[in-house]
């Protein structure tokens, strides 16, 4: 299995808004490796640095030091994003477009030829069960439907690596189940999924490996069973690792 996502000694500092502090360390010496075909859960409490890590991987934020690469290409190069799909935590898309138009636009950015783009649009809309609403403006969609449009756009290029930032956040149980099913299906197809979540039960079900991060520092990384150790659930192990004491 080859490594397709890698960070080495990744450090991100932001200007602090607190008095007396000049910088705030969002990530500190983060080393991560994700291999082909893995479903990798990225866990941590709020403000731990999960979204910052994803932002660096997607080129939204420049690291202060260290390196990050996707498929062996530096993340600062746009071409590194050719084989990835990304679903942000909050899904907002152009409300003046229909789902079909949105997917066609993104297919163009990926350089998919017309016939292949049409095929992918049909496939992804069927996969996320939005085929019947494809001609409707996105502004008329419910939250769950918008989340599924988000998944469809993340899958339009048939990516080898999916980066999902809290994909089930704010969804009802049915919506969560559908997203989980899609992740499971992608796993079965041999795709690599890197996702952050607070739903530890869900992580336990679908992930091969997990990493736990707190205050920008990597606290633990390994297979779900290794992380759980003697604890009954991943949630208990997670709370121990981040230093929460009841």
């Amino acid at each position, binding site marked *: 299995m080859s490594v397709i996502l890698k960070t080495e000694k990744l450090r991100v500092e932001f200007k602090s808004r607190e008095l007396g502090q000049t910088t705030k360390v969002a990530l500190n010496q983060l080393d991560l490796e994700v291999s082909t075909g893995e479903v990798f859960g990225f866990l941590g409490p709020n403000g731990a640095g999960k*979204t*910052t890590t994803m*932002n660096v991987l*997607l*080129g*939204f*934020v*420049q690291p202060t030091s260290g390196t990050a690469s996707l498929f062996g290409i530096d993340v600062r190069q*746009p*071409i*590194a*994003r*050719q084989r*990835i799909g*990304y*679903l*942000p935590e*909050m*899904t*907002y*898309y*152009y*409300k*003046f*477009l229909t789902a079909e*138009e949105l997917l066609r*636009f*993104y297919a*163009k*950015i*990926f*350089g998919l030829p017309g016939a292949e783009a049409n095929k992918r649009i049909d496939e992804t809309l069927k996969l996320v069960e939005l085929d019947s609403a494809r001609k409707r403006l996105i502004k008329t969609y419910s939250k769950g439907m918008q989340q599924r449009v*988000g998944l469809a*756009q*993340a899958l339009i290029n048939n990516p080898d690596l999916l*980066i999902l930032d809290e994909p089930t956040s704010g969804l009802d149980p049915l919506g969560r189940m559908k997203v989980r099913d899609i992740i499971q299906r992608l796993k079965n197809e041999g795709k690599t999924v890197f996702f952050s979540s607070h739903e530890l039960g869900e992580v336990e079900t679908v992930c091969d490996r997990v990493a736990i991060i707190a205050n920008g520092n990597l606290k633990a990384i390994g297979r779900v069973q290794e992380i759980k150790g003697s604890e009954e659930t991943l949630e208990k192990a997670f709370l121990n690792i981040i230093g929460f004491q009841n």
Partner: protein
Amino acid sequence: MRNVFAIAQIVILEMYRRKEFYVLFILTIMICLIMGSINIFNDKEVIRYIKELCLLMIWASSLIIAITTTARQIPAEREQRTLLPLLAKPLSRTQLIFGKFLGCWIVTGLALFCFYVLFGVLAATREHQWPIFNYFQAALLHWVALGVVVALSLLGSLVFAAPSSNSTICFAICAAIMCLGRYLDQFALNFHEPMRSLVYGIYFAIPHLEIPFEMRNLIIHDWPLISWNFVGLGCLYLLLYMVFFLLAACLVFRRKAVN
């Protein structure tokens, strides 16, 4: 280029589907129509004044369309968080800037085309002539000048947080250049050094938008065509500013965090 055109296409589609865009567009057309239908004593001078007012209205409207359309592009993408899934694609920030610019420039060009055609038809019904090449020269330089304004607004949208402040500043800069730009060298003579050099410096540094603005006299006074070489040079001069502002926008946006 494929990505630049895809972004531009989305900008055009957005403008087509947004209702706000049509308000100013229809308002300008209606005012031009009403003014064009006024006939006071069939006096030629009055018709000339009306033509001047209509063209002034077209200039003001086109500036408002160019600035307001452009100023909200990147801030709206950030605010609505549509920028994140977009930049997660194999799209460089330079392509995004150029795509947004192209889309806004084409939109303002289409609005301008409609304004000039309507104005031309209206004037032709009165004067029974349509100096099409005069219109072409005036409209061409007008459009290229709007390209400079679009590029400036795009740069402003990356520097200023709020689209409203950017729009106000861009509009004030354009109005100041068009009204005072040509007199700056004369003002400079009234100052002592180093103020004189500073004012001279500003005079040479600013894009002289008053040049294309004055081209409307070709239509108002039915002046003969100016040399096509001068039109070409005028376009080139404005294109250089356009490229300068776009490159500055790319530089500002290149290292900006978008989270």
